[in-house]
């Protein structure tokens, strides 16, 4: 009767589902993990226009070599931790990592990547990459950057990844306004002056990424350095309680006050859109993904500095091969192919993902289409790197949070820097990173 039928149905459903689960677990639907040699290689990427450019090109690679490439996308913070988890586990989830340059100490320094010369003695230096872009992939890091504890400063340097996207903090500004008031934007005081003049015009004087984390700290870097401050001392203790750092934070808060409402939740998205829609007069924006969308009224130049020195901050994205990858040769094939001249010319020609080859950044045809390429190259060569430590993501978290509190007037700038310093010092000591 009905009871028997009921159980029969249940049994069938049960059997089917278990069957499906068994098949699904092995990726029979075509999206297998990187374990098997015939399957695709998995690349972990950042969810943004740089990754889009790479994803568009990948089918060409597959056509040429027959190797399928799959991409898993994550937000910025998630990407870092997922890559670390994959790198440190016996069963890797990704073959290739797409990495932001402050992460290189973690991955390269931690020994989680293959050096490029492992592959037939490939010499990264002689490929034609812009030196400003390539140097971030070098480990130990080049002088004068302090070396983290436990790294031998005299070890032979290797390159552990190849740079794919040239990015460096650039200063975007409304050219008409700058011309109108006759201000050359070379120092932060100039920036303040222009911002003051735009008060009441309906346009925000300055817009910044105020939502904490990596975005805020990255925008803060050029200002900190311009005012003579540093994140760390040479012994890897926090240097954020210095008077210079305080002056820098005060400048940051002043710039924040020129911004539109809601700025404490602004990320790259909002800042870029504000500049593109003429709602703000000045701001620091990444060229990759944004410069090409700016109207002609927005000029792009090197970030302002102080006392004749400017401090752009490099933010290049690279691709490296995980040490626990199963198919390192094929991974290398892909990276090499992707960063080759013809591929870089392809994505460089679109403008959303800047190429890292010197020849392309200075190429006359490309510069006709994208006049900011040359300026980006110059900034790259002048740029500073963020401190080379695996603790950087934590520093960013802590400092970013404190800056937000200062923005929202929950703390004074002194308190914010004090607390951040304390927390960072505690972290560095507890994890044995101070020298």
């Amino acid at each position: 009767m009905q009871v028997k039928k009921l159980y029969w149905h249940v049994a069938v459903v049960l059997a089917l589902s278990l069957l499906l689960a068994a098949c699904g677990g092995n990726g029979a639907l075509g999206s297998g993990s990187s374990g098997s040699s015939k399957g695709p290689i998995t690349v972990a990427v950042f969810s943004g226009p740089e990754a889009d450019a790479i994803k568009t090109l990948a089918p060409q690679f597959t056509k040429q070599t027959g190797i399928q490439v799959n991409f898993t996308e994550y937000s910025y913070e998630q990407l870092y931790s997922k890559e670390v988890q994959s790198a440190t586990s016996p069963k890797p989830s990704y073959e290739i990592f797409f990495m932001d340059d402050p992460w290189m100490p973690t991955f390269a320094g931690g020994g989680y990547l293959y050096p490029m010369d492992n592959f037939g003695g490939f010499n990264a230096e002689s490929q034609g990459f812009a030196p400003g872009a390539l140097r971030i992939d070098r480990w130990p890091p080049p002088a004068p950057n302090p070396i983290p504890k436990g790294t031998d400063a005299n070890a032979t340097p290797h390159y552990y990844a190849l740079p794919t996207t040239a990015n460096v903090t650039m200063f975007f500004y409304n050219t008409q306004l700058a011309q109108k008031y006759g201000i050359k934007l070379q120092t932060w005081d100039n920036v303040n002056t222009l911002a003051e003049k735009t008060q009441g015009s309906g346009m925000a004087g300055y817009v910044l990424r105020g939502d904490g984390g990596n975005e805020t700290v990255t925008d803060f870097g050029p200002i900190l350095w311009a005012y003579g401050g540093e994140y760390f001392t040479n012994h890897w203790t926090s240097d954020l309680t210095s008077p210079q750092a305080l002056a820098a934070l005060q400048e940051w808060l002043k710039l924040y006050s020129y911004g539109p409402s809601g700025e404490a939740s602004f990320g790259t998205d909002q800042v870029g859109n504000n500049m593109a829609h003429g709602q703000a007069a000045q701001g620091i924006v990444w060229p990759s993904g944004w410069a090409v969308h700016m109207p002609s009224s927005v000029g792009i130049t090197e970030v302002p500095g102080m006392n004749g020195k400017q401090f752009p901050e490099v933010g290049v994205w690279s691709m490296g091969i995980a040490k626990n990858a199963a198919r390192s040769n094929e991974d290398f094939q892909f990276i090499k192919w992707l960063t080759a001249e013809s591929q870089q010319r392809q994505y460089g020609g679109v403008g959303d993902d800047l190429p890292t080859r010197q020849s392309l950044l200075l190429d006359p045809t490309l510069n006709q289409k994208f006049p900011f390429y040359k300026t980006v190259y110059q900034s790259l060569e002048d740029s500073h790197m963020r401190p080379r430590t695996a603790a950087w993501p934590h520093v960013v978290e802590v400092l970013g949070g404190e800056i937000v509190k200062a923005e929202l007037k929950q703390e004074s700038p002194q308190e914010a820097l004090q607390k951040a310093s304390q927390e960072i010092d505690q972290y560095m000591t507890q994890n044995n990173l101070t020298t």
Partner: protein
Amino acid sequence: MASNRLANAAQGRRGVHFLLSDQVIKYAFIIPAILVLLVLMVYPLGYAINASLHTYFLGKQTGFGGLVNWVNAFQDTFFWHAVGITLLYSVIAIPIEMVIALALAIALQSISFRLPSTLMSLVRSVILIPFIVMQVVSGIIWKLLFLPQFGFVNYLFSALHLPSVDWLGSPTGAIAAVIVMDFWIWIPFVFLILFSGLQALPEEPYEAARVDGSSSWQTFYHVTLPLLSPVIVTALSLRTIDALRIFDQVYAMTGGGPGTSTMFISLQLANTAFSELNFGLADAELFIVLMLMYLIIALYYFLFLRGRMFHA
């Protein structure tokens, strides 16, 4: 008595193999559940205690830390801030939700006789939709609605000549946004429980009240509320349990921001474990959270359920 007869029958039944006897079945049915829970819950918790006594860096164990994680846990301002705002949000949102849901249940009840049953079903289904919808999507919906320049809420405010609020860019605004979104998602749930409770109430007290000539308000206060109170307490308990777990929709709408103003317990703990990769600290903190939960449950028990048979 029937049960004696049963007991005798069970023991003396011929033809029932020992393996099918009540004694065996009684335990056979329950052991898989106990085993699964031991393996999937007790073992991980034990693992967590052990892990909390070690230090971690980038997700790997780096040595025996003793109680350092526990000390850090009690000093972790981010963690206690998370506990604070979770409790704050709960204390604000839940009572309001209970009141609105009750009002809605009574309102629907009072017009239900005018609606054909299919329409009634439809109305109830529609009301239920926000609760059934994936909470991630709810987060996205409300993120869109609360956008500073392009969202509907501020547009509505400006149309009504109200000042526009910085919803997602200020701490109070963000928490307010989370609470408003919470109303949308959870009032249907509370409503449903209260409404079902209302419909199951007996008629005699109402007849008596009518005969006594009491007004609507008096009827509500002296008949409905007392009769409905067990249901209200259950709804309150269930709602509290789920409120403290809030994650999906906040992750989608604010990601915990601005800064850390909407980093509720789930978000903060997940951040410590999976972003900071400091499992030692996270494991210590999760025990503190567990203790807190037990405390709140005990509080509820003593406040509401003492003397009453708790449905368990």
